[in-house]
């Protein structure tokens, strides 16, 4: 065991626990338990908001899988990763003020609260809750596998033991601290990710003898490594551009991201978050993936992509500093998992249980159940992750695409288009998710683009066509909804 590496990691975990305990005090004193536990009482400032979005979004794939692929394919993969720059400002600009204003008007705590009030349809709610639980559960499992593997690689413990450590760490602070704990730990994790990226980038450039030297050596090995097309020519412009949909603008449809657009304190916080978020996302994505490319010169011949990051950190940095840097992917994984965990449990508790099973449940009962269900879901994921499926990055992206196809139009058009209605939303979700699964299975990369593109277009068509076809039904209900959402 390498204690130099492990000690900073333990320090990091202790800090995270302390935050959970701090946040749990807020929960005890909060006037409205649900608002506090699932939304931090809508008090996030700009800095925390920006970092919690970045940390939630930047997952194991950005820190472990991503640099590994960049190592194999070269600068073309960095080009692809930079499609994420747009998420920093686009999501907040589009959902931005409108989502914050509307969710306060209707007192929404979860994304599904919003959909429920906007579409007044039981089926929309149940289908949404189902998609969230299904897709986010698999995303979570993929992340836990990543977390377990990371601890395994630093400590040399068995995979199961590593996963157990990871699970306990996340569960404790999420279960006791709720959204506020998640947001604060996310910010700290965001800072760790930022510093980790910076240190490792500098270390790698020095170890590689400067950028010029690195580029020359890469070009000598295979000129395509410094082209936008990837070492094997597999990165076509159509494929790379389609990532603008998957990891750029489509992110608006991810519940774990959009729910954050309900949580800011005021419009000033949102403005600051857009600026900080863009800079931080851009820097981390650019830095992390460049590190992967540069790493090819510093440590040639790594076979397993996922090991590039840890090996590189141990190679180019002193032990204790490597520990700090390796806390970055840990932070990324934990901060993605914690918010998803909370979201899945809110879908179960708030959206299904309180809506349909027992609307009259007492505050105390809701409290106990929220904490209990969060813990139970965590334990279920742990059990799933013990026998993990391979290919972490693709499982994760599968969930991303499915959720985007399901939610992007019901959210965006629900906010901006008065004629959008429940039939449109249902058609959109069914067509989006259905076609995503079909294409993913039978014809991935249709027209040379990422699988997500066609389902997103189909779900848009579904939304518009069905909303227009059924616009004469339930006229008065639709007018009430419009009055409530758009009215003064």
């Amino acid at each position, binding site marked *: 065991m390498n204690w130099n590496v492990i000690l900073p990691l333990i320090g990091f975990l202790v800090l995270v626990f302390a935050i959970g305990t701090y946040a749990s005090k807020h929960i005890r004193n909060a006037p409205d338990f649900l608002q506090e536990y699932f939304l931090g009482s809508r008090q996030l400032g700009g800095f925390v908001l920006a970092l919690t979005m970045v940390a939630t979004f930047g997952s194991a794939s950005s820190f472990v899988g991503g640099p590994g692929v960049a190592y194999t394919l070269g600068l073309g993969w960095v080009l692809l990763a930079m499609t994420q720059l747009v998420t920093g400002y686009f999501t907040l600009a589009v959902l931005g003020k409108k989502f914050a204003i509307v969710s306060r008007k209707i007192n929404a705590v979860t994304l599904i609260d919003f959909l429920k009030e906007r579409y007044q349809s039981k089926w929309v709610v149940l289908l949404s809750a189902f998609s969230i639980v299904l897709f986010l559960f698999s995303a979570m499992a993929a992340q836990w596998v990543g977390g377990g593997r990371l601890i395994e690689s630093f400590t040399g413990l068995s995979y199961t033991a590593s996963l157990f450590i990871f699970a306990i760490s996340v569960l404790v602070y999420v279960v006791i601290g709720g959204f506020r704990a998640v947001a604060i730990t996310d910010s700290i994790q965001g800072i760790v990710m930022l510093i980790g990226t910076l240190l490792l980038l500098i270390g790698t450039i020095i170890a590689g003898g400067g950028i*010029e030297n690195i580029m020359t050596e890469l070009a000598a090995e295979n000129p395509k490594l410094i082209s936008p097309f990837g070492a094997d020519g597999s990165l076509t412009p159509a494929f790379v551009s389609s990532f603008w949909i998957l990891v750029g603008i489509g992110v608006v449809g991810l519940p774990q991201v959009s729910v954050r657009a309900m949580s800011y304190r005021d419009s000033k916080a949102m403005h600051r978050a857009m*600026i900080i978020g863009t800079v931080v996302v851009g820097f981390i994505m650019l830095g992390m993936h460049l590190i992967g490319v540069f790493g090819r010169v510093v440590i040639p011949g790594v076979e397993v992509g996922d090991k590039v990051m840890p090996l590189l950190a141990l190679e180019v940095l002193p032990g204790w500093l490597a520990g700090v840097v390796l806390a970055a992917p840990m932070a990324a994984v934990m901060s993605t998992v914690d918010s998803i965990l909370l979201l899945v449990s809110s879908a179960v508790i708030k959206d299904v249980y309180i809506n349909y099973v027992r609307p009259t449940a007492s505050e105390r009962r809701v409290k106990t159940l929220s904490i209990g269900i969060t813990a139970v879901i965590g334990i279920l994921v742990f059990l799933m992750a013990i026998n993990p499926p391979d290919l972490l990055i693709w499982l994760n992206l599968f969930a991303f695409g499915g959720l985007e196809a399901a939610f992007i139009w019901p959210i965006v058009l629900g906010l901006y288009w008065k004629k959008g209605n429940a039939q449109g939303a249902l058609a959109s979700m069914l067509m989006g998710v259905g076609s995503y699964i079909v294409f993913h299975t039978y014809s991935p990369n249709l027209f040379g683009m990422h699988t997500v593109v066609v389902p997103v277009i189909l779900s848009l068509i579904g939304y518009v066509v069905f909303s227009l076809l059924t616009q004469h039904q339930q006229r008065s209900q639709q007018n009430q909804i419009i009055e409530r959402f758009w009215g003064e």
Partner: protein
Amino acid sequence: MGNQQNPLQEDRRFRVSNREALMGVGLALLNFIWWYAFAYGLGGKPVSEYGFILGFPAWFFYSCLLGFVLFSVLVYVMVKFLFVEVPFEDKEGEET
């Protein structure tokens, strides 16, 4: 549309949010064009003809590095000078 009741008094804050959402979309479009044009415009040539800036191939420098800096600045400018602060809470606590 075809509604005889008193016409809807739309929340005034939405004019601000609609305009800002459109600005966000516009900036994203611009960002895409910048990113694509430099990456495939300059990067589409044979590698032996690449120019280099600060050690990076020119396509990468303009598309990814300069693009990152430029769009961070543009976001700052957009938010600082074009976005308007509005209160989120309702003025007279609506019925729940």
